[in-house]
């Protein structure tokens, strides 16, 4: 390395510490549904969960403002319980798996010295105008114990391609094994990290293409501003009319309790209540749900107190893998409100829109019957007390 001002970050060693401070206090996002960011952000904030960091703010990767679709990336990361920290020309993006969408902080709002130090410590050239060949963009995976597990630096000339990123991945795998005897199999952690890098690489390279597709689509599909009344809270969002309620809940509003199974109204995993009636969110366009009261699985419990059906599902062990469970419970809430099904056979028929691949059906029926009888008993007691 001929440039003494940058240091090559070492794989398998503690990741270089960094901090990102606000240039002025009380920085707030301009997106109406974002939350205020709490700056400064430091590396130690991420201890305890993997962190994927992408530094893309200068040259190299041709990502223009508007092509960056953080929701998609956030959904990827959520599945792996990883946090994301991304610097783009748009600014700073930071997500933890369970955070709300946080869009904030133009680069100009961050302390320039912090940015320079971060870039330097992670092996990137000082600036686009440095005039010498050097890495201008980098992709890093930092483990839960803050060890740097993967780094790929892309040069200003040309930018990364999927091939070079995958080559980097292969190198990273070798590096991971370097200090230990050679082995053929990856550990689970390495597998997770590798998959995450692959997904991120593929995503970043898709970025510009998505941008083009989105601008082509914008010519016909103009976005619509809607107000979704979800679990008693009104959330304003701008959506393409093609976005389903299911995708709006999961990808835009961070309400991932509602699950996507078949996405064609055949499995019931996406069941929510609209106007108190159970429906498939995957076949409802978000624009069609504008201003209608929506209840999702997140809206059932009252604080720590579970909804009677949630409690009954626990009591009757009405699940195995649990993926269909939010849909099953929402469907059962609808079923009890409808008041049509009483016998076990009727309950089974009335729950036929919810598929359970683990076949927990007997216990699901038992849970619904338990909740139905509990609610009946309570309302009878209330009637008696009232008379």
């Amino acid at each position, binding site marked *: 390395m001929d440039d003494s001002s940058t240091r090559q970050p070492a794989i398998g060693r503690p990741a270089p510490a960094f901090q990102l401070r606000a240039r002025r206090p009380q920085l707030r996002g301009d997106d109406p549904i974002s939350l205020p960011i709490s700056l400064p952000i430091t590396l130690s904030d991420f201890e305890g969960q993997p962190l994927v960091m992408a530094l893309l703010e200068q040259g190299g990767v041709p990502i223009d403002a508007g092509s960056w679709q953080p929701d998609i990336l956030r959904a990827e990361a959520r599945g792996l319980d990883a946090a994301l920290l991304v610097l783009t020309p748009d600014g700073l993006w930071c997500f933890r798996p369970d955070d709300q969408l946080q869009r904030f902080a133009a680069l100009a709002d961050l302390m320039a010295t912090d940015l320079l130090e971060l870039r330097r410590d992670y092996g990137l050239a000082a600036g686009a105008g440095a005039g010498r060949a050097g890495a201008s963009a980098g992709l890093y995976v930092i483990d839960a114990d803050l060890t740097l597990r993967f780094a790929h630096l892309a040069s200003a000339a040309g930018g990364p391609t999927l091939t070079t990123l995958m080559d980097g991945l292969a190198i990273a795998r070798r590096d991971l094994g370097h200090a230990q005897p050679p082995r053929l199999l990856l550990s689970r952690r390495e597998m997770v990290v590798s998959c995450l890098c692959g997904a991120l690489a593929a995503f970043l390279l898709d970025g510009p293409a998505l941008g083009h597709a989105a601008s082509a*689509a914008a010519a016909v599909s103009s976005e619509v501003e809607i107000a979704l009344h979800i679990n008693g809270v009104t959330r304003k969002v701008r959506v*393409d*009319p093609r976005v389903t309620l299911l995708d709006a809940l999961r990808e835009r509003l961070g309400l991932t309790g509602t699950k996507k199974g078949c996405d064609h*109204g055949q499995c019931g995993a996406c069941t929510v209540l609209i106007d108190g009636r159970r429906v498939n969110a995957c076949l*409802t366009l978000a624009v069609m749900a504008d201003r209608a009261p929506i209840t999702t699985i997140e809206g059932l419990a009252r604080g720590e107190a579970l909804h009677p059906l949630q409690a009954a599902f626990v009591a009757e062990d009405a699940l195995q893998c649990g993926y269909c469970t939010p849909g099953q419970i929402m469907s059962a809430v*609808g079923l009890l409100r*409808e008041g049509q099904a009483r016998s076990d056979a009727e309950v089974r028929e*009335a729950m*036929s829109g919810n598929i359970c691949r683990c076949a927990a059906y007997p216990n699901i029926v038992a849970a619904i019957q338990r909740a139905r009888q509990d609610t009946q008993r309570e309302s009878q007691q209330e009637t008696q007390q009232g008379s």
Partner: protein
Amino acid sequence: MQPFRYIRPRDQAAALEAGHADGAAFIAGGTGLVDLLKLGVEKPLSLVDLAGAADLPAAIEETPEGIRIGALARNSDVAYHPLVRRRLPVLSQALLSGASPQLRNMATVGGNLLQRTRCAYFRDLAWPCNKRQPGSGCSALDGDNRMHAVLGLEREGAGADRCIAVHPSDMCVALVALDAVVHTQGPGGPRAIPVGELHLAPGAHPEIETVLWPGELVTHVVVPVTPLAARSHYLKVRDRASYAFALASAAVALEVRGRAVHAARVALGGVATKPWRSREAEQVLVGQPAARATFQRAAVAALAGARPRAGNRYKLELAQRVIVRALETAAAGRAT
């Protein structure tokens, strides 16, 4: 999904105007259309959401002509309505046999009338399909045609072997048996169309499925209340106990005087290219004893014109048994 404009008109007049534009499609429940949008089968330029059209009815009311059901009435509301349950049991049963509770809470009567086929080749852009792409061919003729139609197919001429897709609706089969009338508003003003004349067999043009004009809007359906309707029954046989499309179904209605059949209606689902009324079966029934032997002869008559293919020959026997059992159930039922 191809981009489209989303329009939410405030009343029927505005909906008609928006619906008249090139490439416009009406949307109400969305259960059929959103699915087909995702598959790329439907590619409208604009979606006209009828939910905001305040003067488009969703109510279910008794009128001198019969029970009037608004186009925006949800399937579940119709199925559980006391009037429908008591006076038109076959309609309630047909609706409850279709789809899932969630879908029935979304799907509307207007949309169900215009439901598109579930033919796997129609839904998969990779295959030729005359209904989706006129002239491209029919993949089901020599493909997997276990689910396909045996009735409503032309034997020869330009209309032969163009399309063997089944009409999927249960509700329409019941409405055909009940002599319902579909009311519409279109560019040419209001129309009243007997539901039996709404759908078209594929013939030479499988892409044209109904007699409706582009932009014509279903406003309501009127179902006559008759002694026949009170003694009616829907039987549906499918691959699983619930939540599946029919392999064969029958909507039947009987008016029995003494021991003889005074009037009868037989309509079939799951076996035909359109909701299928079998006047042949009805003719066999009228004037004959309301007994199994009569029902069996009627069932044979209903399937006499069938044209099975390699994978759906079983439907001949199955549909006949369904007809017989449905008639027996209706005959045993209490007339009101």
